[in-house]
């Protein structure tokens, strides 16, 4: 073929054939498809995402509980050791401890007691050690 002009040559058909009777039941096929509700598509990725998040949440919670209890137990143990050491081993006296307290600490250990003046007097007069305290 030396020369080919698409608009001068006789028209070339696409060559595609439509099967016989294809359009015979085409309308019914379409109408059936329209009247059949499409099944709801739930994305597998979305499902997996929720599943993964719940697994992650359970893992985080269980890990944090374990860690928290470990830390709490450890700090309790440390407190006890320190207390035992102070009471039994060290040479720190109560007076030394008192000097270490600042106003905030004192406020914390303050107990709000509403005592009657007559009652205090009564206790003081009945106590035999009162004089010792007073001299001290």
């Amino acid at each position, binding site marked *: 073929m030396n020369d080919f002009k698409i608009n001068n040559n006789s028209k070339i058909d696409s060559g595609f054939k*439509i099967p016989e009777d294809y*359009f015979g039941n*085409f309308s019914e096929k379409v109408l059936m498809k329209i009247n059949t509700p499409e099944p709801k598509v739930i994305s597998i990725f979305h499902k997996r995402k929720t599943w993964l998040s719940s697994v992650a949440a359970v893992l985080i919670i269980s890990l944090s509980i374990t860690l928290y209890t470990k830390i709490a137990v450890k700090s309790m143990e440390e407190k006890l050791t320190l207390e035992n050491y102070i009471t039994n081993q060290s040479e720190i006296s109560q007076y030394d401890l008192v000097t270490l307290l600042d106003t905030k600490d004192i406020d914390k250990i303050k107990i709000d007691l509403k005592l009657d003046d007559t009652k205090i007097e009564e206790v003081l007069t009945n106590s035999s050690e009162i004089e010792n305290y007073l001299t001290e």
Partner: protein
Amino acid sequence: MEEKEFIQNLLNPKTQNEAFQKLLLDYQKPLYNHIRNIVLNHDDTDDVLQNTFVKVFQNLKKFKGESKLFSWMYRIATNEAITFINKKAKKNGTTSEFLQTKIVENLKADSHFDGDAIQIKLQKAIVNLPEKQQLVFKMRYFEEIKYEEMSQVLGTSVGALKASYHHAVKKIEIFMIKD
């Protein structure tokens, strides 16, 4: 019947069924040819054509009559066909260009294709063109759609469509004289 009246019948629940049947009868063949020219094999065309009409029916309420029914339906069909070949290519782990080339190479074995050597060569020439030029050439040459109508379907200016067709024709003519 005027198009406006026909659209009203399509939207009215009382006349909808009858009007939609008419729409199917009027458009099934031209839309089949349009889709077949894009997706190339019959079974895929059947799927896309059914989906096109289902989509047309579902979106009738949204059709505001700003464009012609013809261009609106052709636009839906074109989008459905292009989306279909892209999805099919993705499913096969390849490109739509490669997939289309493979189909054209095997056209001889297709029971729904009865073209001769020249027709096969023309299909091979078309599949080598860029996507837009392929579409413009097929719509103008095989389907004989006017540029003005094509412009409404594809949202491209008439001038740009003419230029696309001209480029496509030149490339096809060169391909056709090659051995």
